[in-house]
């Protein structure tokens, strides 16, 4: 006789939830909090990357390695929910890794976490969850979803230190409707405390790093995985050669460290990357300042804004808080919406250096609700 216990009872029926479990503390607590509500749950770990194949030292990268799946499996067993490792390698390779490399090749700054959320977590995982008969997907992201009379609103996580809404700006209304972020209402210390109290084996696990599939140095990874770029020149804005670099994929606009340019009068920053000439343009901090910049591939998240864009009367303007990097607090800016896929952003008082390719994510003036987001374009 196979005794499966209550494990899985009700899962696969309407209103059951697939919870993405990386083996970290956040998604473990997400699963735990949901299990307390009595909702039917299915734990899923997403196999996105073959660490054995892609890592020299066979090191434990950051998350989603086989050891992490063991942790996820233990948490699932503790919560008495069914648990599966599901293969997403093909999609991840195509939509995240390849795009990551291509973006570097173009001299732009990639953001693989956003691509992963868009194409892997909130598209393919959702489809596969529906295939399992589950209507909702839950993750351990620090963000919140609020329902109003006209739709769903995406808010920053309550813990602003951990807030991950920036990576979620591609969420569509129908996705938000069927998504749960159970840890978004808590701070990280609270999450750890909950994990400890519940006796979850992942309670004291270390934080994961930024890019899950890179075990060692990011630049070495890009070099190894397929960048064909060789050495090139560092030049000033005036075109004077001031040194040599080991490939443009090693740099991002705004970067100061690792330039190894001695003898300059003031600290040097990367102000531009020219992939065609294989040049990295450097300058002073003030050279980074741009009065305005264009954002493409816009995703509209706030329901009112979605309606306004759908009305099709362009251009229109509004004031927002613009966040241009994951670790940026956001500053006030004016946006001019050019059409449904592009807008132009100008700073109001304060400013921030922008890296073409990075995401510009727009929040309301309270800097709490995420309104829209897109990719910073290279041209002005």
């Amino acid at each position, binding site marked *: *006789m196979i005794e499966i216990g209550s494990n899985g009872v009700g899962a696969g029926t309407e209103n059951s939830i697939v919870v993405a479990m990386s083996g970290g503390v956040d998604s473990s607590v997400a699963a735990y909090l949901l299990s307390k509500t009595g909702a*039917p749950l299915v734990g899923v770990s997403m*196999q996105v990357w073959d660490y054995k194949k892609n890592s020299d030292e066979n090191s434990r990268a950051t998350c989603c390695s086989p050891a992490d799946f063991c942790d996820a499996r233990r948490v699932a067993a503790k919560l008495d929910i069914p648990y599966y490792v599901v293969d997403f390698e093909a999609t991840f390779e195509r939509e995240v890794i390849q795009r990551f490399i291509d973006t570097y090749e173009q001299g732009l700054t990639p953001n693989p976490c956003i691509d992963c959320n868009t194409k892997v977590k909130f598209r393919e995982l959702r489809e596969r969850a529906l295939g399992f008969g589950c209507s909702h997907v839950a993750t351990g992201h620090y963000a919140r979803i609020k329902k109003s009379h006209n739709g769903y609103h995406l808010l920053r996580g309550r813990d602003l230190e951990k807030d991950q809404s920036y990576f979620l700006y591609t969420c569509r209304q129908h996705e938000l409707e069927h998504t749960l972020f159970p840890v978004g209402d808590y701070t990280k210390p609270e999450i750890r405390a909950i994990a400890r109290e519940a006796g979850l084996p992942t309670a004291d696990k270390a934080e994961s790093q930024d890019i899950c599939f890179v075990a060692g140095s990011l630049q070495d990874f890009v070099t190894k995985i397929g960048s064909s770029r060789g050495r090139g020149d560092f030049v000033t804005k005036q075109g004077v050669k001031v040194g040599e670099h080991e490939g443009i994929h090693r740099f991002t606009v705004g970067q100061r460290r690792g330039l190894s340019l001695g003898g300059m009068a003031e600290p040097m920053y990367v102000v531009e990357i020219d992939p065609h000439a294989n040049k990295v343009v450097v300058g002073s901090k003030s050279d980074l300042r741009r009065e305005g910049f264009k954002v493409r591939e816009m995703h509209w998240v706030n329901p009112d804004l979605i309606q306004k864009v759908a009305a099709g009367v362009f251009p229109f303007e509004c004031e927002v808080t613009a966040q241009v990097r994951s670790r940026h607090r956001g500053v006030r800016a004016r946006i001019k919406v050019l059409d449904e896929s592009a807008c132009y952003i100008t700073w109001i008082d304060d400013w921030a250096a922008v890296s073409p390719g990075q995401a510009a994510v727009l929040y309301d003036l309270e800097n709490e609700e995420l309104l829209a987001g897109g990719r910073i374009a290279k041209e002005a």
Partner: protein
Amino acid sequence: MALYFGPLVSRRLSTTSGKDYRALFVIIDCDANATYSPDEDIQEFISAHWGSLGNPSSLHRGGQRARALLEEARSSVRALLGTSDRSQVVFTSGATEANNTCIAFGAGRKGRLLSSQIEHPCVLEPLHCLTSQGRDVALVAPDSDGVVTPDALEAFLSPDTAFVSLMAANNEVGGINDIEEVVTRVRRRAPQALIHTDAAQLVGKAEVSFERFGVDLLTLSGHKLGALSGVGAIVVREGVLVAPLLRGGAQEGKIRGGTENVLGIATLGAVAEAIRWDLAGRIEGMRRLRDEFELLLLKALPDCVINASGRERLSNTSSVFVPGVRADDLVVALDLEGILISSGAACSSGKPEPSHVLTAMGQDTEKVRSTVRVSFRAEYAPGALERVVESFIRVVARMRRITTEGRSRYD
């Protein structure tokens, strides 16, 4: 001792998660080729012998009782396999150890080692290892039904062939190889060769006769028959002096060192006995379920393809290509419905790998990705098959609809 093999269905009322969704949750296990999980009779059998057993090598009565159980099990396995008293039955920790032992023994001889591409990993991996050590190892390809024909195998035979290992039936697709005919050909073309068959999947699903096969070594697995896992056996022809893989004490005729897993082996003996008394009924029960399943499935989903359907194959196994559906997802979705099937073979890693069997059969990636295995037990509760078919059809339809909707929503 009489054993009744009842239906494998677990009825259970959920009480843990409160009032929200108390439900009758019934598990229907259609993954018998992975493990034929022991019936309650085995639990009773174990309880009956619990605590009374010593080390079977001990002189005292505790040892004697254990030894008696071992020998009773040995004679039950002999009887099930139609083995003459002169052949030896050696118990191991499972088919993996049994097969490793046979291959290591075969590799002790000079000459070519011959096997097939669709063997279980516990045959293939030791052979790959020997290849990397410079041995001449040839692996015969199956035909498109996953059957290794005597002609295909014969083409690889030469007088210097030292060892031939061919599975009696394939675990994933269910194709049955003509071992008798293969043995005839090997004896003719390579009279020196030692012949082994891995019969882990055939035993209990067809009549298996060691003497009629004419092989030198036959291996089997306990948990594929309904015994506890951790038990296997090698049947050794008289005069074949197998060298031990595990060296230690003089247990198992000095072919396998280490204290025997007495209770596990005893369960193998018990199921062997039970199967022997009703083999025909058991096979017929499995075949009826399989045929009914395939008939109903194809009626509702005519684009599905049953692998090896025109061939002699395992009475309980349906290997089904379901176009447009990821096999692994179908396994998960059906598990959530309480129906246990598998995609290809059971894998120990947790991460599904593409099936080497289907690949060797020449199937493209899409077919490999979309093929599931349904392998029946001999008996189920009334209505179980109908529920399996109903769930299968409904889940496949749902998955196909979602793929289509997803495309139209995003593209």
